[in-house]
């Protein structure tokens, strides 16, 4: 928290108005909300709207030659003409959808607010709910309780010497259980932020407050892996990516990266040495990884993620996406649509393209041939960002 000469910090502001809003704080602690039932966005089918394609869209991918984008208010839009015209899909919920992934032209999943995971078998035209926050909360609690049970059993058998270690583990799990229970008190409140499927059966979804789930049957059943990650503070998990060598990586809050080489059964935690959010990770060359995140922070590891160095920052805007192509090098996309490029596998970066006023949530490399452009989604829907090939940059 900084107090700059001209302003007030939000927290100071909060204290100032705390009296006025005391009534809120009190009510926040009361258990049953008094307001009527109102609309439950988990139960409300998405409104069919001609404005859907211009809404806030957050995730975009391809299903065969079809573009599929998801966004606020349960909106899923499809385009079969490379993004020129869009049609809206039938979606049973109106929560924000954050991420979408297809393993074939027909089969795909989307994840979003209130712990929702949807599945489509018809290339995105219609979707069904396969998980929501209510189930997600139970999965998390069940997982943590099971782990606590397992540790307790182990501790009972363990020698005194080992006992201390078990005690510490139990304490951590206990805190996490408390967190999870408190969170579940708000109902299905925790969003899923990203998902990735290996094939039609095996898939993962990650989200806020340390949620991570795995399915082995294409989304019919899910298990929580939350306890498998070393994440005592239930940090948000922002993205899950598959590295070329098959390693799974999850990035999250406080500069955390977790790797798994056994399809999520076990994870090892790494810290890049940064207090803020990481939003993604990309391989710049074999064993060289580039992690990027909040406020233009970029980190590089030349040893497969063991140790990290901070790369000189050249933008204050958060980095929301990255692509790596032979001829382009590593290209990072900032929240405002600016492009930042590295020609030396992430050692140095420079602004390659300034954009003003855009608001990008995520990007997809142009999937329809050699054209150098990106499909970007964000406020206002889908837009295409042409990559100007500045030769000077190649020197």
């Amino acid at each position, binding site marked *: 928290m900084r107090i700059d000469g001209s302003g007030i910090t*939000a927290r100071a502001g909060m204290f100032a108005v705390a009296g006025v809003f005391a009534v809120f704080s009190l009510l926040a602690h009361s258990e049953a909300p008094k307001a009527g039932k109102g*609309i439950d966005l988990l139960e409300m089918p998405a409104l069919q709207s001609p404005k859907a394609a211009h809404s806030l869209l957050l995730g975009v991918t391809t299903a065969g030659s079809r573009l599929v984008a998801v966004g606020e208010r349960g909106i899923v839009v499809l385009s079969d003409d490379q993004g020129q015209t869009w049609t809206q899909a039938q979606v049973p919920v109106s929560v924000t959808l954050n991420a979408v992934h297809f393993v074939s032209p027909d089969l795909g999943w989307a994840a979003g607010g209130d712990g929702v995971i949807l599945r489509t078998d018809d290339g995105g035209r219609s979707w069904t709910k396969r998980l929501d926050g209510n189930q997600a909360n139970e999965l998390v609690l069940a997982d943590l309780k099971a782990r606590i049970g397992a540790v307790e059993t182990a501790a009972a058998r363990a020698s005194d010497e080992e006992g201390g270690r078990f005690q510490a583990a139990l304490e951590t799990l206990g805190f996490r259980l408390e967190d999870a229970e408190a969170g579940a008190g708000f109902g299905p409140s925790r969003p899923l932020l990203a998902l990735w499927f290996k094939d039609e059966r095996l898939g993962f979804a990650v989200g806020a407050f340390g949620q991570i789930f795995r399915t082995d049957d294409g989304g019919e059943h899910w298990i929580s892996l939350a306890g498998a990650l070393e994440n005592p503070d239930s940090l948000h998990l922002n993205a899950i990516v598959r590295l070329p060598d098959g390693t799974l990586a999850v990035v999250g809050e406080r500069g955390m990266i977790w790797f798994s080489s056994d399809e999520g059964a076990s994870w090892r935690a790494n810290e890049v040495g940064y207090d803020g959010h990481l939003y993604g990770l990309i391989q710049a060359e074999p064993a060289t990884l580039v992690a990027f995140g909040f406020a233009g922070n970029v980190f590089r590891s030349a040893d497969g993620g063991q140790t990290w160095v901070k790369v000189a920052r050249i933008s204050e805007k958060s980095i929301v996406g990255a692509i790596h192509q032979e001829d382009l090098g590593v290209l990072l996309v900032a929240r405002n649509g600016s492009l930042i490029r590295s020609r030396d596998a992430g050692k140095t970066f420079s602004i390659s393209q300034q954009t003003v006023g855009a608001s990008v949530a995520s990007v997809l490399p142009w999937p329809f041939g050699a054209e150098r452009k990106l499909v970007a989604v964000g406020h206002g829907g889908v837009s295409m960002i042409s990559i100007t090939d500045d030769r000077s940059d190649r020197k």
Partner: protein
Amino acid sequence: MSQKEPDAGDADLVHHSVIKRFEQFFELQFERFRLPALFFFGIASVFFAFQAVQLEPEASFQKMVPSSHPFIQNFLAYENELRPLGNVVRIVVENRKGEIYTPEFLNTLKQVTDEVFYIPGVSRGGMKSVWTPNVVWNEVTEDGFVAGQIIPPTFDGSLEAAGQVRTNVARAGIVGTLVANDHRSAVILAPLQEVDPETGEKLDYARLSQRLEESVRDKYASEDVNIRIVGFAKIVGDLIEGAAAIGGFFGITFALTVVVLWLYSRCWRSTLATVFCCSLAVIWQLGVVRLLGLGLDPYSILVPFLTFAIGVSHAVQNISTMAVERMNGRSNIEAAKATFRVLFIPGSIALLCNAVGFSTLLVIDIGVIRELAISASIGVGVIIFTKMFLLPVLMSYLGVSPAALAHQARRMRGGHRWAHVVARVTDKRMAWGIVAAGAVVLALGHTASRDLKIGDLDPGAPELRVDSRYNIDNAFVVEHYSTSSDVFVVMVKTEPGECGAYPVAATVDQLQWHMENVPGVEGTSSLFSAMKKVLAGQNGGDLRWESLTRNRYSSNAAHRLLPSELFNSDCSMVPVLIFLEDHKAETLIRVVDAVQRFAAEHGSDGIEFELAAGNAGIEAATNSVIKQSKPLMLGLEYAIVALLVLWEFKSWRVTVCIMLPLFITSVLCEGLMAMLGLGVKVATLPVIALGIGIGVDYGIYIYNKLEHYLEKGLALKDAYVETLKTTGGAVALTGVMLALGVATWIFSDIKFQADMGLLLTFMFLWNMFGAVVMIPALASLLIGNRGKGAGGGIAVTGTMASPKALQANP
């Protein structure tokens, strides 16, 4: 049959015995009452004049809306809380030379902000501009949540500091609201207080508007800086200014009236006496209005014109009767008595019809229309005094000048060829032709009127002209800012303290999304639109978090950062702003329907949707009241006027003869409105009532004379020729007088006054035409030559055969 002895009126008095006695009493006492009457009128006039001069132009928002409509009730219940959203003045300061981020311009903006701060009526705490400390940017940085003023207290006027302002403006997200989309102008937003909390005085819109002009526009507008001012208060201010200006038109109307009256009578005595009496009527009317505690708003300021015009139009009958009586050799006093006797019944009935016509406007639950109805009825009421009593008294003293008598003699000697031509409409074939033509005109009018819309159709402030300075300023704001001048507000009511809760959030968000998909809706905004932005901000600007949350800690934390005008003080109401493309009736109906459908489906005990505030919400209420009241008002008006006519003439056939032309005129008027793009609204609905109420005068005067001659046994055609000879000119003059009285409004700066003037002029002239042509034609078909008597004709309506008519036959 003698034409020299128009033993007028008696036939009438036969079937109005009470009135007859009343009339006879005054007639008998006429001479004795002359001096006391003058004395009484003198004293009363001084008193009313004293009252009238204290009247001040005003315009009140509450009076222009249907205050008992549920929409308005809901709005009034939250009026204070909605004020920062509603009664706001926006002062746009534009840099003509470029963007606003120069030290000089920012300094000017500061001066204007300070200037506005000290204008009485401005709610200082709610004022916003890039200079006020309540407008902050906030941003999540690696160091936490940072916030600050757009222009920090440390601003030193340097170029760098001015550049920093640009950054702050961008991150505060005020482009489109406080700063123009093109960054070339900035807004000072000043909410107003309708009642001064300290003095308890009502906001004086005229003074506020004047102050804005003097100490803001006049003072700061220059080659480099342009000032534009929009907001309800400015509309009201401009209305008051425009209303005051229309006072000037009264002079023109007055002068024109004098000229026309003189041309008609060639008698200065009667001309001046008439104008004097009618001016007294205006003074009395204004005096009574003031005594009743009513004000002079832009609508009721038109009533003096009407009073004057109606007075003059009736007095024309006095002038002509007086001249005729004098021609017949009666003394001034006897002629005045005769005038009183002849005109008392038809004049009073006609004026009563006027008053009734106006009073049917009372069914419309809109303050200004009701006040218009009341003050117009008062106007008509005082005419009965000044014109029925005072004018004959005055004329008995003044007499008619010899020149005027000579003029009258010439007129009566004339061949009256035109009267014979016009009277041909009573020939059966001609009459059928006229009626057929009337039917065609009616059909055409009806076809055209099917396009008639309810409500205001022009963009911007419909009260003012499209090219008025206000509407030009308003168009600028609409073009350069992301705001619409047409805002429809839905108030979402919750349990106290629950306005930010998730179920409310989800429901409101869906309402917004549903409404954004209604054609005509440009966008929406609410507490939750802002809350989503803050939630994203609190999560590092991650757009995936720009979403509602069920997590009460998160939503409360976001809620605390939001401006308090987005919800009410005990957090039991969230206004949802729906921005519209226009305020056309269809758009408003679509929006109201969509909200009500949504409310029916998703409303619950804890989440109620209350319509409606915002100018568009209020207009929707006004439209619905107008739409509902229109058939009721017209039905009542036709029924009552028809009953009065029936009472006067004791014949349904006569009633049809008189009412049918009026009906054709009203339908034509609606057709004309549709073609001119005028909707049925607060301003135009009264016109229809006024048109019928005043239009019936012609019919009453014409048929009264016609009946007189018929009862004397003349054939219809001859009777009509006689009618035209004696009263035809006066009727034509009446139409001209009435039209003159209202035609000057067409040049008013106030759009609705111009609309009213145009339509009334049309109705007055067309009603006159209808009366002169249609009434005899219809009479020929419906009544025939019922008065032929000894001429061998059989009375068509036996019941109507009056002893007097038989008696009158030689």
